[in-house]
């Protein structure tokens, strides 16, 4: 949308950082840097737009890309200079999904872990539908399955198929995604309800409660009743449980009678098609759910599952729970309750009366004022999140185009190196818990990603970064032109530092860090100069960038996305 000054008149409703504009009859809240001065008695405004309604400054573009993609690239930042954030998001939402499984030949099943991770990187680094891919990755940390701890390590193509379910569902409806995940053979295996036979009446055993509990606790509602702003609903000062053990048992009975489509044996199942239902193995007794009791002898297994998922989907918690999780995974660990409430409202109603529209939710998350301007708001001291190690890695690869032209790295045991790889969490509780608080933070603040950044893990990860830059600096080909053009002039060093700042710290690099970055570049440049002032072209690009990367990787400024 192109906005012309003549299109609107300004009504200044508040003085300070925020101004509300009355524009075309509608009120738009815009965040602007406003400078005023008095000239001949007239109050003049000069307005620098940082709002989502206007084309973006490079640093703002890079911030959006850090949040909504696997990291900014020079070309995407360039593109966003002529687009609004909303137009960019709309374009992203319209792109077809890039899936993982098609990278393997059809019928080629149990590929090894390093091939699956390679395909993940190919997609993360190069797929056009970056926003969808980033959402899918966030959802993989809500609908958690993992190759750790059971047979899934040997079912890598099944894991790819699971990830594709998340990619396909990432911008669809949350209720549909809940169904697709529930019927997925990988989830069935991971949370042990495939097979899960009816035990009604045998007295000796009970339905497996694993999935029944975790789909509610971790994937939709959370253990305590929430207000729409994500805060607990308190009763006599205490949180109130969302569900009882009896209700878990009710749901456990729902998830019985499912097994793999080809053969009901996890060792031989392909895990590439949804599970199928066997009514004779389904628990047909009455089931106590959250807001309803399913009568005995249902029409079908599917009717039971649909009724159970509807029961969960109708619960008041799902909008604030899912909204807050996604905000925490994408934007900031400690969103204000108002931000959660704004996104939850869109989850509840996308404007057309539809609940659970994830494209609308994504848009609400990324376009919210707190996403776009939280780093310069009154809440800036609490704002941001620790980047996940794998996001640091993709950030690095994309910013320096370390793997150009569709290429991607192979890793063996990346989780051992950086504590993380896609679908390799230690448990259904993900790599980290959303209520984890790093020591030293004020009471009430959380810092989930710090949980996989203990001191030992931090050291191990930095050792990994060192190897990355030692053995991959020769890949910084795309920077060669940049290096040449900047030459050895001071302006060149500054321009180089500006580029690093834009891509890795989104224009927020401190003077302290910038001084060291420039210093490292200078030392290397000086070594590269012959006495007569000509260059040897031996050191500058590789070692200089290598050193700068190490500096960056261990700096709080790169680590904390703001």
């Amino acid at each position, binding site marked *: 949308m192109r906005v012309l000054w003549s299109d609107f008149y300004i009504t200044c409703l508040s003085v300070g950082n925020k101004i509300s504009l009355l524009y075309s009859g509608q009120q738009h809240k815009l965040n602007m840097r406003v400078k005023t001065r008095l000239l001949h008695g007239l109050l003049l405004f000069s307005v620098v737009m940082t709002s989502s309604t206007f084309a973006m400054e490079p640093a703002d573009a890079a911030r959006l890309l850090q949040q909504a993609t696997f990291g900014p690239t020079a070309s995407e930042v360039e593109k966003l200079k002529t687009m609004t954030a909303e137009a960019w998001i709309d374009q992203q939402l319209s792109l077809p999904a890039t899936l993982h499984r098609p990278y393997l030949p059809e019928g080629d099943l149990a590929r090894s872990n390093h091939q699956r991770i390679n395909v993940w990187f190919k997609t993360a680094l190069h797929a056009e539908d970056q926003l969808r891919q980033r959402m899918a990755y966030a959802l993989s940390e809500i609908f958690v399955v993992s190759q750790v701890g059971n047979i899934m390590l040997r079912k890598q193509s099944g894991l790819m198929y699971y990830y594709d379910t998340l990619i396909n569902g990432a911008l669809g409806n949350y209720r549909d995604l809940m169904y697709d995940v529930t019927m997925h053979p990988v989830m069935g295996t991971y949370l*042990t309800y495939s097979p899960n036979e009816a035990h009604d009446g045998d007295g000796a055993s009970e339905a497996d409660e694993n999935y029944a509990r975790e789909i509610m606790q971790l994937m939709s509602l959370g253990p305590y009743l929430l207000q729409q702003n994500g805060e607990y609903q308190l009763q006599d000062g205490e949180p109130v449980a969302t569900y009882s053990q009896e209700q878990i048992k009710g749901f456990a009975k729902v998830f019985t009678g499912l097994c793999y489509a080809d053969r009901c044996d996890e060792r031989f199942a392909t895990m590439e098609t949804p599970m199928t239902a066997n009514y004779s193995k389904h628990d047909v007794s009455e089931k106590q759910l959250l807001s309803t009791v399913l009568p005995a002898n249902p029409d079908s297994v599917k009717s039971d599952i649909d009724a159970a998922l509807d029961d969960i989907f109708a619960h008041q918690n799902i909008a604030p729970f899912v909204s807050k999780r996604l905000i925490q995974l994408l934007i900031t660990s400690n969103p204000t309750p108002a931000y959660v409430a704004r996104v939850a409202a869109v989850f509840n109603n996308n404007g057309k009366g539809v609940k659970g529209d994830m494209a609308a939710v994504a848009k609400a998350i990324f376009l919210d004022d707190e996403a776009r301007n939280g780093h310069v708001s009154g809440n800036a001291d609490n704002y941001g999140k620790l980047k996940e190690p794998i996001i640091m890695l993709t950030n690095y690869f994309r910013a320096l185009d370390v793997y150009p032209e569709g290429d991607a790295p192979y890793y063996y045991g990346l989780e051992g190196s950086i504590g993380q790889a896609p679908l390799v969490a230690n448990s259904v509780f993900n790599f980290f818990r959303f209520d984890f608080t790093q020591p030293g*933070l004020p009471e009430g603040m959380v810092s989930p990603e710090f949980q996989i950044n203990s001191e030992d893990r931090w050291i191990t990860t930095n050792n990994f970064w060192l190897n990355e830059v030692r053995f991959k600096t020769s890949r910084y080909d795309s920077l060669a032109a940049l290096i040449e053009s900047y030459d050895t002039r001071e302006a060149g060093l500054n321009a180089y530092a500006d580029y690093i700042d834009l891509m890795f710290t989104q224009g927020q690099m401190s003077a302290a860090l910038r001084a060291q970055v420039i210093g490292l570049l200078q*030392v290397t440049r000086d070594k590269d100069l012959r006495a007569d002032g000509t260059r040897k072209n031996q050191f500058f690009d590789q070692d200089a960038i290598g*050193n700068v990367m190490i500096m960056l990787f261990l*700096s709080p400024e790169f680590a904390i996305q703001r």
Partner: protein
Amino acid sequence: MKDLRINRRAFIKQAVMGSLGAAAYVSSGLRMVSAAATPGSDYKALVCVFLYGGNDSFNMFTPMTGASRQAYEDVRGNLARPLGLEVTPANMTFADGIAFDQNMSALRTLFNNGALAIQGNVGPLVVPMYNSDGSVNSNAKKPHGLYAHDGSQENWMRGADLNQKMGGWGGRMLDSWHNNNAVQEANFIRDISLGGTNTWQQGIRYSPYATNSDGFIETSFLTTGTGLLSTRTNAINNYRTNFSTSNRLQQAFFDLYSSAIDNNASLATQIAAVADSTVTYPATNLGTQLNTVAKLIEIGRANGVGRQIFFVGLGGFDTHKNQVNTHPALLTTLSEALASFYQDTQVKGIENEVTTFTMSEFGRSLRSNGDGTDHGWAGHQLILGGSVDGNKIYGDMPEQTVDFNLIPTTANEQMFASLATWFGVSQPDINELFPNLHQFNNDINYFRS
């Protein structure tokens, strides 16, 4: 070795508490035992072994014969364990016998020798769940988070219900010790985790240092590199000196960074100087963690650190599936690692100064779900050490029948109170540490007087 993290954290905490009104946590001012006088004297260490996932601890102790064995096999079905290794506790008799699992022979030996005690049927409680006539009080308030992994883990680590106390009971215990002990305060080695981040060790004023099972890691990113890559060391140091931020997450990350670099370097030097143990530990991660704990105890004693707490972890206990194969193997790992550690303390003559105990978020449902078990509530825990009044079962060892409801008869805060008392917390302060303890008798004592 300077501990930057502590200084920084202490400063932040004061600032934060001033602004958020959390001062109550500090001003409650626990009265702690007097400080250690000289290095090595009055030394004690508590070692927490956390069994992640919820240990099916009812399957660690099983009846031998008769109606009890029959009831056990009926309720357990395909998950019933074969006959175990019988023991005769000094304080309790079992008509149908009671046995350690057959995979736990090493711990059974320690039980028989009096170094190991069992706390039976313990779990998080805020009030007693049973009426005086033995019936369940269905109106009794239950703790938050029951049956869920995260909520139940927090209940164990905090020694309190949700939102009742900040931090964990181990860390809070150390906080009060610090109040009287300058040596301890200055040394991060008082509070070390080899089993990852955890709440148990988190104090109000001070935080644990987390390292890997070896205790330290090579920091090649600081030292390695040829040619110009090596020039970054000065830049890193300059950056550390000049860094400042008002963003709390950046500051927390900076503290982590400083703690990692400085404390890791300190540990690398100190651990390298400790002679290897003469005891052979099992080649498991738990064995390695406990081997390192033994070295850190030597370092702590040599430095005059009067009290230390350690956290080690063993995962894999969430046996919804394939329990028949996985759980017995875990019991072997646990048993052999604990026995080696105890033997090591004996060799060093410090077995009376070290107490090791297990925590696990919950016991598991007795009934099979076909191939495994689901989340429960009460479970059994182990307490091991030279000071322990062992060969005894504290609390209850209920019969495993279809009617048993997995409701704890001992509150875990009662268990913790005995451990904290041994550690040196004065009796008036015990109720301060454990907010629900006043609802229960405080008469459990695992230790020889």
